[in-house]
């Protein structure tokens, strides 16, 4: 129960942060990515401010096996680079620059009533489902090709 309340509260504050940060205004996102044109560096302060908090506090808790509410700490451990990471990031970036939204701001803007955000979120969910289908097909195909058990 406490974890649910925490999650909701975190989502709420996160949304407020995204809004004040400017992430929910596609024009600010595009302005930030417009390195070669009319550059608006504002979003750098969003990421910078967030890292300024998270980085030092993370170091305090990273060795703990359990969270304060007793859950296993789900800190990722992979450090290798692979084509999926880079390819996925590349595709995500293109979408971010074209639409001006990334997942969080899209959801928040949707709730605030921005019509384009609804278009974005719907197609984002479709894209996530599409990935799941494609990935599943690839995994099944290689299992078949790899030989019978």
């Amino acid at each position, binding site marked *: 129960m406490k974890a649910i309340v925490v999650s909701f509260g975190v*989502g709420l504050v*996160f949304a407020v942060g995204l809004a004040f940060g400017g992430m929910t205004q596609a024009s600010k996102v595009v302005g930030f990515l417009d390195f070669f044109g009319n550059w608006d560096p504002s979003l750098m*302060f969003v990421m910078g401010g*967030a890292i300024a908090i998270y980085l030092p506090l993370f170091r305090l808790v990273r060795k703990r096996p359990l969270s304060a509410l007793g859950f296993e700490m789900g800190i990722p451990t992979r450090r290798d680079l692979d084509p999926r990471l880079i390819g996925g*990031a590349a595709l995500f970036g293109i979408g971010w620059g074209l639409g001006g939204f990334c997942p969080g701001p899209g959801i928040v803007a*949707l709730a605030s009533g921005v019509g384009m955000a609804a278009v974005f979120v719907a*197609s984002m969910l479709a*894209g996530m489902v599409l990935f799941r289908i494609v*990935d599943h097909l690839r995994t099944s195909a290689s299992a078949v090709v790899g030989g019978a058990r």
Partner: protein
Amino acid sequence: MENFTPWSSLLGGLLIGGASFALLFFNGRIAGISGITGGLLTPKANDVAWRVAFVGGLLAGGVLMGFLRPDLFTYTVPYRSAVMVSVAGLLVGFGTRLGSGCTSGHGVCGISRLSPRSVVATVTFMATGAAAVFFANSVGGAS
């Protein structure tokens, strides 16, 4: 520089950083929106409620801020049709799942953990994002 808003952006960043850390500290979870949302599409037992609550919080925040500060929610980017935004959404949805993260998961949490994967991912999506904006501006005319 146009429309530079360092203070409100910094405030936003501090709130995001604090909220993200709270999720780790209390729940042991990484505040990566694409991961949290994506995990809802492949629900596992006992792993759904907190995700629904988180997204619920995002939505509640959106309703609240949309009411208090509608000026923070304008969509005024030129040359973006609904078709283009749909394609953009597909790319974001597919790409974040393939690449295991987005601006929150990689850009904030991952970089803070000094994860080489996240640093590379962030540099990559910033670069292709810049390229996309450059081409959109070239094709559509300067913004």
